[in-house]
């Protein structure tokens, strides 16, 4: 409950506005001026507190000024003005009445309340005018005859309009109505623009709160991501240590260091060794990934013969390809100049592409590895017209990749068929590592593929990778 001064801030729509806030004073003056010209009556406008907003005289100026020069006149004139400003005017709902007041000088004024939404905001005072029925000067003036030159007063009074009070009341009522329309329009404009501003700042406030929430949840996610990387690094490290022992002891057993093995034992042990190495590879790539994620790729740049790297990579997957009767051929430009790259990362990238090619190509398929300078093209040419980039591509005629998947396969852990019944092993890490390595060199990797026809993955790398600015 709010008594006069409300506790909670007054809403935009609930604030009471004063006459001064509602009208534009120059416009109000213009309006009054045109009334004065039309009716030859003075117009005064006062606000609720009796402060004057408009005062335009016509004809009465000299008359009043003369009477004001002498003290009895001055005193009574002031009485009249005070009455005009302050005499309470009744307002009942929308109903209002005009009131008249006769000055000691015999001239008369009519007051009309200015009502807005049932509240009295001020008043209009029309006059002075000489009432139609008035005879010579007012009796009060005769009483003060000693003070004034009555002939002079008569002369001056002639300049003031004669009118019937009824007519002036009608004019006052009309004027009040015009003013109210004006007030309504300004009130509407004021509320509307206020609402507009408030609504916009409310929306802004809401948006800010939302984006703060988003930012917080983004930061939480980032933190989780960091935790995941750390977790990966720790776990893979902890897994590797016992695994190296498993592999080491299996190798020792296979080498006969603990005595002869029968063929069956040898067979079982080979499987243990094979699976163990598979597991080690997986853990190694997890470790690589967590390294990439936690500190970015660190390159150890060296002048490198690319053809040699390609050959080493091919020999890594050759045993597997042979077992699957996949034909693995190369087209290597032996004459290309050495490149400045991280040889280990380049080898790893090519091996990853090759092992995918083997994995996703049916038995008896074909894989072709090509490497060489980027064919002379404006983009691949250095400032002096020399080639500045080289390509390595791995082409297979395997199962292919649907267009919708071709972007996503480079994401960490993404696999086209991620069901538990999928035909191929792996963790979905290979390509994301390839991408990180290649991009660290300032290069790119892309795939061209058609479903059921095969895929070609291409690495595009600068011949000379710039040393990173930071140590």
């Amino acid at each position, binding site marked *: 409950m709010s008594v*006069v001064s409300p506790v909670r801030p007054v809403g935009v729509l609930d604030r009471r506005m004063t006459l001064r806030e509602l009208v534009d004073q120059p416009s109000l003056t213009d309006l009054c001026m045109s009334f004065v010209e039309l009716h030859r009556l003075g117009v005064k406008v006062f606000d609720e507190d009796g402060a004057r907003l408009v005062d335009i005289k016509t004809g009465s100026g000299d008359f009043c000024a003369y009477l004001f020069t002498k003290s009895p006149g001055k005193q009574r004139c002031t009485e009249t003005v005070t009455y005009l400003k302050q005499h309470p005017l009744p307002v009942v709902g*929308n109903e209002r009445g005009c009131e008249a007041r006769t000055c000691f000088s015999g001239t008369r004024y009519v007051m009309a309340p200015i009502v807005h939404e*049932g509240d009295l905001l001020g008043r209009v005072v029309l006059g002075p005018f000489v009432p139609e029925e008035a005879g010579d000067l007012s009796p009060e003036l005769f009483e003060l005859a000693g003070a004034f030159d009555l002939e002079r007063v008569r002369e001056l009074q002639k300049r003031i309009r004669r009118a019937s009070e009824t007519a002036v009341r009608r004019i006052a009522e009309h004027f009040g109505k015009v003013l109210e329309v004006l007030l309504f329009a300004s009130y509407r404009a004021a509320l509307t623009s206020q*609402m507009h501003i408030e609504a916009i700042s409310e929306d802004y406030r809401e948006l800010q709160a939302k984006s703060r929430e988003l930012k917080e949840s983004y930061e939480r996610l980032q933190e989780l991501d960091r935790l995941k990387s750390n977790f990966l690094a720790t776990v893979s490290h902890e897994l590797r240590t016992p695994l190296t022992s498993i592999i080491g002891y299996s190798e020792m057993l296979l080498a006969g260091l603990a005595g002869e093995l029968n063929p069956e034992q040898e067979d079982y042990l080979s499987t243990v060794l094979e699976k163990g190495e598979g597991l080690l590879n997986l853990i190694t790539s997890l470790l690589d990934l967590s390294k990439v994620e936690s500190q970015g790729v660190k390159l150890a740049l060296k002048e490198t013969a690319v053809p040699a790297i390609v050959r080493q990579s091919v020999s890594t997957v050759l045993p597997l390809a042979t077992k699957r009767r996949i034909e693995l051929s190369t087209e290597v430009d032996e004459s290309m100049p050495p490149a400045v790259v991280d040889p280990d990362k380049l080898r790893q990238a090519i091996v990853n592409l090759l092992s995918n090619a083997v994995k996703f190509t049916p038995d008896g398929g074909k894989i072709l590895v090509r490497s060489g300078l980027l064919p002379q093209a404006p983009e691949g040419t250095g400032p002096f017209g020399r080639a500045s980039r080289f390509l390595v591509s791995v082409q297979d005629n395997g199962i292919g990749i649907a267009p919708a998947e071709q972007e996503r396969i480079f994401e960490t852990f993404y696999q086209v068929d991620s069901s538990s019944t999928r035909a191929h092993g792996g963790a979905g890490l290979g390509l994301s590592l390839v991408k990180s390595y290649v991009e660290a060199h300032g290069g790119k990797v892309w795939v061209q593929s058609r479903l059921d026809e095969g895929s070609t993955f291409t690495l595009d790398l600068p011949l000379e990778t710039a040393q990173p600015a930071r140590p």
Partner: protein
Amino acid sequence: MELNPDKRELALKFVYYGPGLSGKTTNLRALFQTADPRGRGRLMTVDTADDRTLFFDLLPLFLQTSSGLKVKLKLFTVPGQVMHNSTRRLVLAGADAVAFIADAQPGERQANFDYWRNLGENLRENGISTENLPLVIQFNKCDLADGALRQEIAETARNSRRPVFAATAIRGEGVKETFSALVSLTLERLDREHGLARSTGLDLAELLGSLARTLEGSRAGGPR
């Protein structure tokens, strides 16, 4: 509410709330059209070219009592379009009572429900407790409702602790009933919680009578 004991003035704020096109503006128009011109101000509407409320509508009503207390009732509507939620919240600020205008058309059930919840949220945001808030529910557009729904409304009316009215605002049906009930609830609450009658010498029954005459319009004779 705003009570100014010196000037003997009481101002109350009523907000018409509800889904888009449920007939909030139509309610105010209907009240405006039949009310005694001496007891009402101009109807202020701020709408778009297609007659959707943009910010609010405002209709002031004035009542006078023999104790000399001037009572001003300010009726607002909110814009129903979803995007104007912050405007709805602003209009709702400082409300003394709410008329929830639901749409009785068969397809509007979900919208009614959504806006009922939206009303709750915005009241909360404005720090207005729903517990004791004078609130009436109007199902408008009953001319378009099917039999099942009309029955359901009657059912709701029987079970609800809030007054429920069926209305066809476009024909003025149920509009005065809705508003009168809301004013009556509001005055009862103010009297209960703030001893309004005692502190202002206000005769609640007289005020409601005065309201009824104002809403009836000139035919029944104006206020006073």
